């Protein structure tokens, strides 16, 4: 099931930047099951965690696709599967016409140069024993992009400047930097490979709001300047609305809704998306005062033993008898707007 290409018309495209119609990344029916084992000496598989269970979406060149959902919904695993940090159980990931799931280790190394990832925690994703210059320069050395150390150093300095850091940071260590500065180093390291596609996995979530805004602006500037494509994985819906062209919502390993950014936020159709948006407090006391606070009941079930039928049915206000047995199709209810719910 591949979503058809819909021309995206946006009034505010001048702000978010433009993107082409070319599909750069096409994920088809992706599945990632992690085995749960028991026994210390003779271990056997007793269950499976269905972290990602049949997810399909595509990303156009120059576009930012937001991937949102709560903990355990599979958004991070999806990102890790695309860059093959996990080996997916099933499904296809087509990048530049090449299925990444079928590549050998050697081919993968080459393909990965064009795909980079920025992690959430700027404290644990940088090696504390390496200087900033070595951290940014290492990928260029490993991939043999710039073998000459002097030229590589110059490139490191250039990347530091691009990411808003002083060139003097090249000789310093991660512990000498603040969280925001470290995240800029993570971005510079991703840019070192001259990538086309960057997976931002909660890239601004650990930062204070004033620093977060600086990094969001940097990511937007870089997208414009280098024509980058982002998969923006986040749980902060306000940030997602600001930066993304389209947004996909996941729940318990399934994609429940996907639409143009403003369509999703102004006219959410899936009951889970509605509940999620309802739960986010808006920084305006007047808006909050007038808002009806419909609070969704219950907690997210375990992905080891997910509910039958539609995984959302135990918490769903619209659930009918059929939801318990029938897995809803992820269908296009209006052009470019996909929803997995039979009651919409």
């Amino acid at each position, binding site marked *: 099931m591949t979503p058809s290409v819909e021309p995206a018309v946006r009034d*505010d495209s001048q*702000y*978010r930047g433009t993107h082409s119609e070319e599909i750069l990344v096409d994920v088809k029916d992706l599945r990632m099951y992690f085995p749960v084992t028991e026994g210390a000496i003779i271990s056997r598989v007793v269950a499976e965690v269905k972290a990602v269970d049949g997810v399909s979406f595509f990303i156009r060149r120059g576009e930012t696709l937001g991937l949102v959902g*709560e*903990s355990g919904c599979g958004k991070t695993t999806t990102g890790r599967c695309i860059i093959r940090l996990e080996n997916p159980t099933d499904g296809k990931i087509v990048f530049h016409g090449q299925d990444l799931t079928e590549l050998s280790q050697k081919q993968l190394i080459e393909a990965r140069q064009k795909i980079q990832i920025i992690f959430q925690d700027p404290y644990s994703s940088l090696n504390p024993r390496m200087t900033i210059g070595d951290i940014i320069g290492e990928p260029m050395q490993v991939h043999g992009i710039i073998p000459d150390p002097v030229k590589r150093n110059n490139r490191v300095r250039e990347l530091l400047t691009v990411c808003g850091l002083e060139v003097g940071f090249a000789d310093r260590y991660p512990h000498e930097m*603040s969280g*925001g*500065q470290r995240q800029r180093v993570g971005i510079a390291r991703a840019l070192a490979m001259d990538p086309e596609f960057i997976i931002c996995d909660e890239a601004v979530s650990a930062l*204070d*709001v*004033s*620093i*977060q*805004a*600086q990094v*969001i*602006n940097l990511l*937007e500037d870089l997208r414009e300047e280098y024509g980058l494509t982002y998969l923006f994985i986040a*749980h902060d*819906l*306000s*940030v997602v*609305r*600001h*930066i993304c062209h389209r947004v996909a919502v996941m729940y318990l390993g399934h994609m429940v809704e996907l639409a143009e*950014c*403003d369509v999703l*936020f*102004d006219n959410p159709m899936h009951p889970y998306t509605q*509940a*999620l*948006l*309802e*739960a*986010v*407090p*808006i*920084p*305006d*006391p*007047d*808006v*909050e005062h007038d808002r009806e*606070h419909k*609070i*969704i*009941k219950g*907690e*997210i079930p375990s992905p080891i033993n997910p509910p039958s039928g539609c995984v959302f049915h135990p918490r769903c206000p619209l659930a009918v008898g059929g939801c318990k047995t029938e897995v809803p199709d992820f269908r296009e209810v209006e052009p470019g707007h996909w929803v997995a719910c039979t009651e919409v």
Partner: protein
Amino acid sequence: MATLLEIEGLKTQFFTSAGTVKAVDGVSYTVEQGETVAVVGESGCGKSVTALSILRLIPWPPGRIIDGHIRFDNKDLLSLDEESMREIRGRDIGMIFQEPMTSLNPVLSIGLQLTETLVTHLAITQEAAQRRAVELLEMVGISEPNRRLKQYPHHLSGGMRQRVMIAIALSCEPKLIIADEPTTALDVTIQAQILELMKDLTRKLNVAMIIITHNLGVVARYADRVNVMYAGKIIESGSANDIYHDPKHPYTLALLKSIPRMDQARQAKLDPVEGQPPDLTKLDDGCAFRPRCRYAIDRCNADFPLLEQVGEGHFSACWEKDKLDTTLAEAS
């Protein structure tokens, strides 16, 4: 309304090898009975240290309250002996911390942790405490309370653990609850459940609450009054409406301009404050925000501006407070 808590000129410092960290540097505010007061600010601004100072939980060494008064319910908390302070903690002042995994003891059952507080503070029998514990768990929306009492923290989800923390905080009918980032570790639908529960219970039981958070949305939804902190000082204080619709300090204004709005279509780019928060060991006499401030004048270098009234119940510590351009980039 009567004043329940009054903090005056509080200074808490940490004496470290890197120098003296002025974590809280002359903070004053009050909390009325039954009122919800928010303390907002970014990491390291001193919001949590202020709360720990109220409870006198600053570890020595390296930290110490060096000046100020804290009056709670007509008692001067800073002059009480340790024994009387222990009677106040958990009985008159309840606490809810950010991380429900680390603030509950992993090797004690939920029941024991709940009844321990009750038996210690209320001098009731174990049976009575057990009955009260069941009531409390029901009150915070935990199903099958009798079974839950026998369980351990690792059996519960993050949201459930935070409900247990709320039950413990409310168990002795406190007059004040201090909630330090109570929902930061939780998912957004669970955050909404927990905050709604806290609001309902504090209103119903007429408990005052200090909610410490960096989330401006949470503040807008739940707080009656707001104190904004920066580098150990309160730089603006007022009603939630004052702070959001008529900010009178450049830092508050900058914070509001840094956050995108989920309820509005995207407009211009974000307009963040440049630079980093200051090093708290190197503060001088001037305004700590001036290196990042667009409105800074010469006077800001030498003179720290005091909180001055700018409207009814609205205070700001800025020399240029009347000259701010408060048209927010994303105002509705």
